[in-house]
């Protein structure tokens, strides 16, 4: 493949996913400079490994896996602890006595605000599944966790999201009713 055609293949396959990849990095890092660094490093690595990418497979999942692995290496290099411990996950999961129905009228702000209030490990799997549209198997590979853990985190995460949304909706309704 010539230089120009290799670049064109990369451009056509990878660049359409940059916007969503950046949004994921921004959400995870909560810092624009960190997100820009992470996305740039991800795409540089993707360019170097592009000959390993199988056309016709899920390119967004491939890029997300590279991003997650790089992020995990960077956190390890900076001696940052894992985002949430298993004990915290358990504690959150056990607080779910009642899962309310999904409220009818939700704004973008309600949904993103509620997502931000649940623990990071749950946010991550929900974003990879519902926004990045990755399969359970792809998520397991990106996060380096068993597929059963992906499923249980998704289940618990969605329940927590609904609890958070229920609280948000109730609080909004209460505010509206106040004189």
């Amino acid at each position, binding site marked *: 493949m010539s230089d120009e055609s290799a670049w064109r293949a990369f451009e056509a396959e990878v660049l359409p996913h940059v916007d969503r990849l950046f949004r994921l990095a921004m959400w995870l890092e909560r810092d624009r400079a960190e997100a820009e660094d992470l996305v740039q490093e991800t795409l540089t690595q993707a360019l170097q490994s592009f000959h390993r990418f199988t056309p016709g497979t899920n390119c967004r999942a491939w890029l997300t896996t590279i991003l997650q692995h790089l992020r995990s290496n960077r956190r390890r290099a900076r001696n940052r602890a894992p985002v949430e411990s298993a004990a915290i996950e358990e504690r959150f999961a056990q607080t779910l006595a009642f899962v309310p129905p999904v409220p009818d009228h939700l704004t*973008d702000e309600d949904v993103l605000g509620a997502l931000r209030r649940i623990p990071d490990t749950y946010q991550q799997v929900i974003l990879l599944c519902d*926004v990045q549209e990755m399969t359970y198997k792809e998520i397991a590979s990106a996060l380096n966790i068993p597929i059963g853990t992906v499923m249980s985190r998704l289940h618990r995460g969605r329940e927590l999201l609904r609890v958070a949304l229920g609280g948000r909706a109730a609080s909004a309704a209460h505010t509206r009713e106040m004189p």
Partner: protein
Amino acid sequence: MQCRDVRELLDAYLGDQLLVETTNDVVRHLETCPACRGELEGRRALRARLQSAFVSAVDLAPTPEFLKGLDTRLRGDSASLMTRRSWLRSWGAAAAAIVTAIAGGLFARSAARRSRLAELARNAAGDHQNCAIKFNLSERPLSLEEAARRYDAAFASFTSLTAPMGLPDGPVDLLERHSCVYEGHRFAHVVFRYRGHIVSLLVTGGTESIGSSPEMLPIDGALQVATFAAGRHLAFVVSDLSAEDIARFADAMVAPVVERLNNV
């Protein structure tokens, strides 16, 4: 199925992650249960709202300056990467030439054999890449029967080849069988899928003195090639799987290929 069971499965159902039988059970329950249908719609709406909120949130979007700078940097990286690869290829070719020259007379026969095998391995890898992966061959593939009539009678024996059994993390799916040409070499080409990767078995005429135990051949790039002899033919197994997986796959192909070609 009870409502409680169905609600446990609704998110996996929405994500199309259930087995066919379980999906059918969920669908049957939903047809008769308005409460679960309402729950499903609520969850579907939440997913859609989450996705739309995420992709339209202004504070998560990349800036135009970042995107422009990224494009420029990646184009620069691409150009220098290609230059480096081309330099490595030239250096590799020069080094190989020097080694061959030093080995000279003593190893002439061995070097010629390796060189011929290396060329065939490169062609097999090129065929895998351009036929099985990119569908980009300049000449249309022929059926094995037609290729057997016109070029090599042995190719007909591959019409009955099946996928190897018993490999770890199997099964292996057989996707395609035909004969194709790459860089002037005609191959019988059988394409499989194993562990999500495309694997090619490519067989061509050749009498290089190698054994019928698979041998890994070094080639440029990410592909792995294993080869073995079968009668007056050489078989190549090519994929981007690991060397260990390719060696295992080639081991599983030896018996059926040798059995077909030893008497041809």
